[in-house]
Every structure is written in C-alpha cells, then in structure tokens.
C-alpha cells in the first residue's frame, strides 16, 4: 500500500499524461467506432444483399482475428506496404494514429453487431406503423426505430466502451505512451517493484471502468419512458 502511494507520488506527472493518452485514445476510437458501427449495422438490416455481404465480411474478419494481430497489420503491415508510395505513419500522428485506426475498426465491428441487434429487437410493427403513415424508410429509422433501439443497445454499448478502454493496453506493443506502456517503462526503471507498479496501473483502469458502468446505470434509468 505504502509502495503504491510512493509510486503514485513519484510518477504523478508521467502517470497522468499516460492516463490522458489512454482516455484520448479511447474517446477517439469509440467516436469513429460508433460511426462505423451505425453504418455497418444499417447495412446489415437494410435487406440489400450486397450491403449485408460487405458488412458480414468486415465483421467476420475483425471478430476472427486477435486485436494484437490487427494492430500489427495496421501499424507495421500497412506502414511497410505503403512506404513506396511515400506513406509513413509518422506523418499522420505516428503509432497513436495507427492505434486509433486499429481500435476504431475493431470496436466498430462489435458496435455494428450491437446496433443490428438493437434494431432487430424493435418490434416489426413499429416500422410498419411508421411506413403506413407515409414516413420514408430513413425517417422511420431515425424517428421511430433508432430511438427505441438505442434504449436496448445502451448496456451493450457501454459494455463495449469498457472493453475498448481495456483493449487500449494492447497498443503498448507499438509504443503508444499510454498507461500500460508507462507501466513497462516504470518496471524497467525500478526492478523488484513489479507488483506495486502493476497494481497501480490496474487501479487506474479499474477506476475509469467503474465510473463508466455507474454512468451507464444512471443513463439506463433516464431513458426508460412512461413506466
């Protein structure tokens, strides 16, 4: 316990900046993941064969491969492949950008499934009622289906947020200076204190995840209507 306090005070600055990177990476990735998820989720429920196949391929590839390997492919693989064209990750924000792209694509696939599930959980009669009033498919989706789907999706979305937050630790392998990378650096500099250091790092994750799930509980209560 004393050791943890000591580690915290001694490394306060670096730890806070690492926490900042973790949070920034999570927020950026989830923002794009949500957009990707909505697009591919809509593809899946569109009833258009081609769109559904495109979404299926994307989702299967992401779900069928480890995130770590995806990160490697995007950072080293894409980096190397496009080098002849003059591309370098360093011109676009370095390993942070590669990490954000990987995490967005990864979480996007899971979000797509969550959004598909949420939309399909809305009773079929809702779309029929909306369409029979003369509302277009798009308007019916936006005004009638999605607001209801969102309610059922919310727990799964927050859950995905928590998973993605923890997944950011994996990108320490491409030297993004987030919390886990900071832990690595600290253990290298202070041999024999591995336990205290990693428990400290774990506590950081634990605190943010706990806050997230509390917020989720409040939100869930807020969006239930007329009951």
């Amino acid at each position, binding site marked *: 316990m004393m050791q943890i306090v000591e580690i915290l005070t001694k490394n306060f600055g670096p730890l806070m900046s690492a926490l900042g990177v973790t949070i920034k990476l999570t927020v950026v990735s989830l923002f794009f993941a949500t957009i990707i998820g909505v697009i591919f989720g809509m593809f899946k429920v569109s009833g258009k064969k081609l769109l559904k196949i495109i979404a299926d391929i994307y989702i299967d590839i992401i779900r069928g491969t480890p995130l770590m390997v995806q990160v490697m492919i995007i950072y080293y693989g894409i980096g190397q492949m496009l080098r002849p064209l003059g591309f370098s990750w360093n011109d676009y924000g370095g390993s942070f950008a590669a990490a954000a792209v990987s995490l967005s694509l990864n979480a996007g696939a899971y979000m797509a499934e969550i959004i598909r599930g949420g939309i399909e959980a809305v*009773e079929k*009669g*809702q779309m*029929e*009622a*909306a*369409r*029979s*009033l*003369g*509302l*277009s498919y798009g*308007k019916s989706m936006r*005004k*009638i289906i999605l*607001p*209801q789907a969102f*309610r059922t999706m919310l727990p799964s979305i927050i859950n995905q947020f928590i998973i993605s937050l923890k997944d950011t630790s994996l990108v320490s392998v491409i030297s993004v200076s987030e919390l886990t990378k900071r832990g690595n650096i600290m253990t290298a500099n202070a041999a024999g204190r591995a336990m205290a250091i990693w428990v400290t790092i774990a506590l950081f994750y634990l605190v943010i995840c706990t806050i997230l799930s509390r917020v989720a509980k409040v939100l869930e209560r807020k969006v239930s*209507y*007329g*009951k």
Partner: protein
Amino acid sequence: MASKIVVKNLKKTFGHLEVLKDINMEVEEGEVVCLIGPSGSGKSTFLRCLNRLENITSGVVMVDGHMMSDKKINLNKIRENIGMVFQHFNLFPHLTVLENVTIAPVELKKMSKAEAKETAMKLLAKVGLEEKADAYPAQLSGGQKQRVAIARALAMNPDIMLFDEPTSALDPEMVGEVLEVMKQLAADGMTMVVVTHEMGFAREVADRVVFMDGGYIVEEGTPEEVFGHPKEERTISFLNKVL
C-alpha cells in the same frame, strides 16, 4: 360513385405458400366493407396488400387511381392517404400520446407544429382521450391505445382507413369503446375496409360483408344477405361456429 379501391386477380404467395389465390374486389367511396373468415384465410394479407405493406405476387391493386405495384409511384405520398390501424396498436412507445398523433403531419410537413397539435387535440377529443395527451402508451389500457392509434391514423386526414382486426387483442370490456369510434367514423362517410371477428359490428355497420376462406372470396353481399341467407356451404359452416 367512384371506386376508391380496385383489386383484380390478386395473387400473393409467401415462398411456396399461396395465401391469396385470385381476389377481385372494388370498394366505393364512403363504403364500409367488412372482411370476415377463419384465421389463415388471407384477410389480413389482403388488407396489407392494399397499402403495399406486402408486395403482391401478381394482379392489380389500384387505390385512388394509383397502381400500387408500380415501382415509380410515390408510395409514401399515397400512404399518407391510407390510414391503417393494427391489431397490436403499434403505438410508438417512446413518444407521448400527443406526439404519436402529431409525428406524421409534422415530419411530413403537412402542418406546422401548432396546427398539428390543434388537430391532434381535436382528434383525441373525438376518440375521448384528450386528457391523456401527455401520457405515454405504456400508461394506457388496450382500448385507449387503439383509440389513440385511430387518432394517429386520422391525423393525416386520409380518404381511406384500413383496420386489421382492431379489437382482437383487446379485453372484452374494451371492445365496445373502439367499435364506437369506428361506427362514428363510418357515419362520417369514411371509406373503410375492416378485417374483423366482430360479427355484430359487421352486421350493424358494414355496407358489404365479404367472407374469405382459403385465399378466395367465397361469398359477399349486404350483411342481411351474408348473415341472413348465406348461400355457400363454407359460409354457413363458418357462421354456425362463430354466431
């Protein structure tokens, strides 16, 4: 009198299942037609073909002079003119009663928000529910929900109203209040096609009763003809079971 709805040689199949085999029917302006028949006879499917909630397999469905199977028609525009009431109400649970009624006219730019609200309050008064304007559907009884659903359909000021077993999901004591609203609507001259198991309502309100079985229209006529002097064996046996 002009025909609001013309149906010729309508066929509808789901996979290998032939639900509608050869339906011919016309509905005049202001006419109230009740469709009766055993479950699985195709009544609801037929009704859903009228506003193209189901795409027809072959034949002709014309509503207000529009060929409904034509891919080039503005389906949304035509549907504004055809109100539909469902067995399970299908109210929008995330919207208040008032919002349920105003959403279509407001979203489709038919009225300003204020106008839509005024119209909605009049319609809610008509179905006896103005005091529930700010309630959510979950707070209403089944009969109240269905009356709101009728008000919602009327908000677009349609020429035609389709009712798909509007009282089948209701507790018996709530059937009357919904039928009362429908009677009023019929008296106001609305063109109505009603799929129903309420023989009393059909006898009292319908201009014409159509008995369907096995994907065909077996018999049709005035309530007096169909209920009083049914000619077909299948009609007689059905009516013996339900009356």
